């Protein structure tokens, strides 16, 4: 029966080409617009560390003085850590793994004479970083915890940077000159690019390029390397990054289960209580908090409000398109009252008529879905040309591709329900009389 209905549907659609084209166009426009925005949101709010994000947490302390007036315009200094607090958390070893970090921007002076010196982005961090985030290595490995204490001049390069500098994948053991200091390459990480770059300072461009190097935080501080993130001070600042009133570091910890999480939360409160007793902290120790990775991303509002707004706009537009399809299908089906009545008089049940109309809506949905895919690709292309830092992410993956088609078919079948129901309730006798 399905094949017969399909044939009937195609014939009926061919009979009124303009109306069919309009319906396909309407569903295509609606699906195209909404899938463009859904895809952008999907790539932006994805899990940056699949399989691991459930164990990664961001602690929060509140070292700000009581009379500190938080400006609603500037960045929040309480988001980052001061050096003493970060080091206290890292050296306490209360979590499975823990690392402090800050973004950096360094000048690389290649040995190769055909390359001019250039700047690269990366992070200064501590030893646990690689194991905690599961950074994949191509050669070598991260540095040992002892390297942090000894402020050793070692570096982990990205595969891209290693290849660019040395022409070969294995750069371990070679020397790299960073801001006029030689660093020994201990490992080459595969190009690792969590989207978004969740561990970076919130003011950084979290959807842009990958980190090219990792250097021990202690060595970077020793050499007075610049940090590229936000540095906030709430009392006089003379450039001393170890000051307890300057926040600039991020701290991430790995916790295996809920008991560890509860214990760590208590540890943060105890630490704050202790600091308050010492007179360093002024605010309630209960302000200390532990955020899960995804919760943290949500809290930091990494997805621009504009993108969410545009998604709602696109979904509203899809709704308009669906109401439109309902109207056009209704007009189309009811116009065929005569044909439906003849079929009914010849013995077709209401169910058969309903199925026939359903197949017709599905065909329109499929055609609309294909058109929607084309429109969504054009939409994504235009998003990629926009000057925002997330623009280059706007690509459709296979799951989105199938999702688009399914959504189109589902939407048009949903829209076809009411018209099909009306069509199968046509009274044959009345219609046949007027034929």
């Amino acid at each position, binding site marked *: 029966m399905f094949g017969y209905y399909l044939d009937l549907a195609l014939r009926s659609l061919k009979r009124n080409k303009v*109306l069919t084209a*309009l319906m396909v*166009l*309407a569903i295509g*426009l*609606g699906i195209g*617009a909404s899938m463009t925005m859904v895809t952008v949101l999907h790539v932006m709010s994805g899990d940056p560390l699949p399989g691991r994000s459930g164990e990664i947490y961001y602690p929060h302390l509140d070292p700000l003085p009581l009379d500190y*007036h938080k*400006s*609603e*315009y*500037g960045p929040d200094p309480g988001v980052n850590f001061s050096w003493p607090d970060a080091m206290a958390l890292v050296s306490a070893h209360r979590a499975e793994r823990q690392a402090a970090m800050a973004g950096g*921007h360094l*000048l690389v002076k290649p040995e190769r004479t055909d390359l001019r010196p250039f*700047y690269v982005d990366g992070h200064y961090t501590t030893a646990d970083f690689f194991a905690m985030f599961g950074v994949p290595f191509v050669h070598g490995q991260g540095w040992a915890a002892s390297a942090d204490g000894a402020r050793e001049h070692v570096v982990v390069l990205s595969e891209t940077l290693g290849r660019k500098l040395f022409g070969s994948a294995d750069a371990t053991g070679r020397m790299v000159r960073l801001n006029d200091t030689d660093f020994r390459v201990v490992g080459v990480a595969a190009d690792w690019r969590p989207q978004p770059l969740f561990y970076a300072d919130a003011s950084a461009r979290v959807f842009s390029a990958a980190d090219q190097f990792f250097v021990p935080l202690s060595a970077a501080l020793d050499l007075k390397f*610049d940090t590229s993130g936000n540095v906030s001070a709430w009392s006089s600042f003379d450039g001393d990054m170890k000051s307890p009133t300057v926040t600039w570091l991020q701290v991430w910890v790995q916790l295996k289960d809920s008991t560890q999480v509860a214990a760590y939360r208590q540890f943060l409160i105890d630490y704050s209580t202790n600091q308050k007793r010492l007179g360093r902290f002024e605010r309630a120790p209960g302000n200390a908090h532990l955020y899960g990775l995804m919760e943290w991303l949500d809290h930091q509002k990494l997805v621009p*409000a*504009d993108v*969410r*707004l*545009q998604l*709602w*706009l*696109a979904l*509203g*537009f899809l*709704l*308009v*398109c669906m*109401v*439109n399809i*309902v*109207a*056009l299908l*209704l*007009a189309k089906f*009811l*116009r065929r009252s005569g044909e439906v009545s003849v079929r009914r008089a010849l013995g077709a049940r209401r169910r058969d008529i309903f199925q026939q109309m359903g197949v017709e809506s599905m065909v329109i949905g499929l055609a609309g879905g294909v058109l929607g895919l084309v429109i969504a690709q054009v939409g994504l292309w*235009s998003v990629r*040309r*926009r*000057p*925002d830092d997330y623009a280059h992410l706007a690509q459709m993956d296979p799951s989105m591709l199938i999702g688009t088609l399914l959504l189109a078919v589902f939407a048009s079948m949903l829209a076809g329900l009411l018209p099909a129901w*009306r069509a199968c309730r046509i009274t044959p006798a009345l219609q046949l009389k*007027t034929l």
Partner: protein
Amino acid sequence: MSWRAMFSTLYRHSLMPLLVLLQVALACAILCNVLFLVWQKMQPMLAPSGVAGHELILVDQISSTTRSWSAAEVQTAEEGLRRLPGVRAASAATGLPMVLTTLMIFEFKGPSGVKIGVNGYIGDGLVKTLGLQLVAGRDFLPAEYREYGDTNAGAPLPVIITQAMANQLIPDGQPVGKLLSDPNESTDPGYRVVGVVRHLLRNQLGMATDGKADYTVLTAQKIGKADGLSFAVRVDPSMREAALGEVRSFIHRQFDSTMDSHSPARISFYDERRDAAFKSQRAALWLFAGVSLSVVIVTVIGIMGLTGFWVQKRTRQIGIRRALGARRGDIIRLFLVENLLIVVMGVAVGMLLAFGCNLLLMHYYELPRLPWSYLPIGGVLMLLLGQLAVLSPAMRAARVPPIVATRSL
């Protein structure tokens, strides 16, 4: 034409009119909100900048990680710039229009207790360099300037505010001479207004909406010791390109040896900065325009399709009307008025829907409240679209010959 007859037709076959009504309501709600978003994005682009943009060169990103510049060095550079051929005025400044990387933020409380947050531009002689138009009071006197960062909190700091700020802070009376205070610092001597300029666009462009575009203040401070430098240079409009070259080579001569080599100074005309600053806004505008146009097209298609079917279904009724003496004009009018009736109801529902959407958006996205004036705009737009969409089916209906009324009754 009887209204009762018309209502009873619509009532008895209520599915078609209901669908048109629903379409109109949804489209109206979306259009009202989109128009409002477009206006929000366009306000900063349309706001008058107050500066002589065509004559203004901006220099920024002079920075170094290893040193800072002394007050004497800043002054030497400032005077050097002023002596260049084609240059009319030059100021070392912090915070400049369309320089989005350095923001100075001030909070003011007026005599009546109104509080506002504004952007500040700081530098010696900025009124002249930016080419601002004073509407009341005077420019700063040379003796009034303090060095930026000097916490010489003796007397109130002289400030020049914009007309928009004056209207907000000092709604009644003369702003010149009035005292403003910092709501966070009760001990601070505050600020004294010495002048008012007509316009000066703030450099937090995202906040330059709803009359807050001109929330900008000039303070009587000049740049002393600084970690990073920026300059505003006003040039002779007939010598723009030559002056740009002169300024470029001067900045390189003066600062290249002391600056970080990786981040060269940015030297360009205000107009170019403005263009670059609004790139993202323009992209968003295109998107909104595309969505609105699509909504309009889809709605018109829907109304046309439905009314076409509506006409076909009522062919015999139309025939009877014609046979009983209705003219073609009457038939066209009948469909136009019917459509008007449905669309007016749709618009009424749509306005409520638009308002509801806006409340939701306000709750989640820090959007301002949709002003009432947008609702009639969206409504009138929908009425026009409805009439346009129904015109061709109505003409088709008018061509129905009276003879059909007599067939197969």
